[in-house]
């Protein structure tokens, strides 16, 4: 039997802009196996961000089904979604989105704090930072770190709760090519060694080429799966 960590059926998202309804996504169905790494590609306006928001439980679909790690999440309320995001989704953003005032360690601890984890919090955060090769810079603040290092802190923060999926939105978009390579290395390693299910949203065909599957979106619909 196949073990799907994500199962999406007929997903639609329609935005209401005043009187006008804009269909951002419609009739999208696919499954993702546990431990898979795949990328989502498509021109701007294709609905990739909308799909990512939906998969990351940041937003609810207008219609359709979405089962994440065994839990149907399409109809949950805001606080339930927050809890799902906390436990099952790890986000890595293009612009890192770290808290400037807090040390790397405190940034990585943040999801544990919102998850109500008090036991071993510092130890787990430290381990996550070690896993991305930042064990010696845990007390540095974001502005004392290079772009690549900041993104590694963000990856540690995404990992610390052992999520079901890692959602990376253009993770190398703000980095020079060398740091970008390193970050992709780390993500691919995590997938290989920890069987971390990973979804990368990207424009870059080189990055997409490193993932197992590529979902191509166009005009709010799945155009091809390669």
């Amino acid at each position, binding site marked *: 039997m196949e073990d799907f960590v994500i199962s999406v059926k007929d997903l639609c998202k329609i935005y209401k802009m005043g009187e006008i309804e804009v269909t951002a996504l419609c009739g999208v169905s696919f499954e993702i196996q546990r431990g898979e790494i795949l990328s989502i590609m498509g021109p701007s306006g294709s609905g990739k961000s909308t799909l990512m*928001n939906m998969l*990351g439980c*940041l*937003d609810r679909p207008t219609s359709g089904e979405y089962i994440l790690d065994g839990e149907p999440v399409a109809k949950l309320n*805001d*606080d339930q979604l*927050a*809890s799902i*995001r*906390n*436990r099952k989704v790890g*986000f890595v*953003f293009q612009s890192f*989105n770290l*808290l*400037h*005032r*807090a040390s790397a360690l405190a940034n990585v601890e*943040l*999801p544990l*704090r*919102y*998850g109500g984890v*008090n036991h071993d919090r510092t130890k787990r955060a430290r381990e996550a930072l070690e896993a991305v090769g930042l064990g010696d810079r845990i007390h540095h603040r974001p502005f004392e770190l290079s772009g690549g290092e900041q993104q590694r802190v963000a990856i540690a*923060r995404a990992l610390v*709760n052992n999520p079901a999926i890692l959602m990376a939105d253009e993770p190398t978009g703000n980095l020079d090519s060398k740091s970008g390579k390193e970050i992709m290395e780390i993500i691919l390693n995590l997938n290989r060694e920890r069987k971390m299910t990973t979804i990368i949203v990207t424009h870059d065909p080189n990055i997409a080429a490193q993932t197992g599957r590529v979902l191509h979106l166009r005009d709010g619909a799945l155009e091809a799966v390669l």
Partner: protein
Amino acid sequence: MNLGQLILEALESLNSNKLRSGLTILGIVIGVAAVIAMLGVGQGASNSITNQINSMGTNLLFVQRNFGQRGQTNPKPLTFADATALADPSQAPDVAQVSPVINGNANLTAAGATYSSEATGINANYPAMRNYTLSDGSFFTANQITGRSAVCVIGAGVATNLFNTTNGLVGQVIRMNKVPFTIIGVLNSVGGGGFGSADNIFLIPFTTAQVYLNSRNPQQVGQILVQATSANTVTAASDEVTAILRSRHKITTATNDFNVLSQASFVTSATAITGTFTIFLGGVAGISLLVGGIGIMNIMLVSVTERTREIGLRKAIGARKRDILVQFLTESALLSLLGGLIGIALGYIIAGVIGRIATAAGTAITPAVGIDSILIATLFSTAIGVFFGLYPANRAAGLEPVEALRYE
């Protein structure tokens, strides 16, 4: 998240924008300081007046004529005979002592200096009833009182104004309305007060006053001072005095042509007046506290807008609405709490300075900043922070994560 972490994180956040946090706190500091100072000074003034009234003596009743009221028929002045009647223990068992008093304007001159005061003609028991004590010399003897002696006992204020000293004055001569009086005693200073100086005293024997202050109607008295036997009998004594005077003045149904005031009634009316002032001043100061609260709201709104992305990120990694709400409320409550604490200290200092200025100006006020006003100020300022922080915090908590993350 536990409270300690919340507070720590809020402090970090406030610390990251010191100038802005400082200015916001300043608004609350000024408000709280104003409230604390005003309440402290008001309470101090009230205490000072009450002390002064209490220092006039113990269990006293002041009987004065009260003409010109509606419903009076054939009003009569108070007389020496009235005073004698009040001292009758069979009719007024709750009255301990009675002293008739004659008052009159006194133009005092001595050693080339001139001073306007009020002369008071008294009997031998008056100094004890008013708690007067001597720094020098003695009070009038029975002979001096019956003999219409031209002698006087003066207050420290009169002594200082005429002689620039209170020492070595016994035997010196003061001219009251051109008549020479020999000083036989000088009173201890009791300090200034709200009704002008309580040391501005010029005492002469009752019989002498009948001649020099009241020669046209020597039997009339300006005031009768009555002392009740104890604090519990003041009301009874007051009733007895009223009954005796009504019968002597042949008042059956008409309004009294006199009034009987007790120290307690002075204290009550003085407290009512100072209380009104305190509430008024405190209210004006409270408005500045309100303005400070609006300042907090303003800054928190700016802060929420600035940190939209941060809020989006926090929500993306699992913060619930409540977490964000509490985070921002903690910040605004801390702002106002810090402001409140600094404000209390500053208000305390301001109250002290006002007290010193008032004392230097001749009105002794010891500001009283009570624990209750400190507690109220702390609670109230924190409540202001929470109240005015609620709207911005709610706004932050209600942000959609997708929108917030996209915010530039």
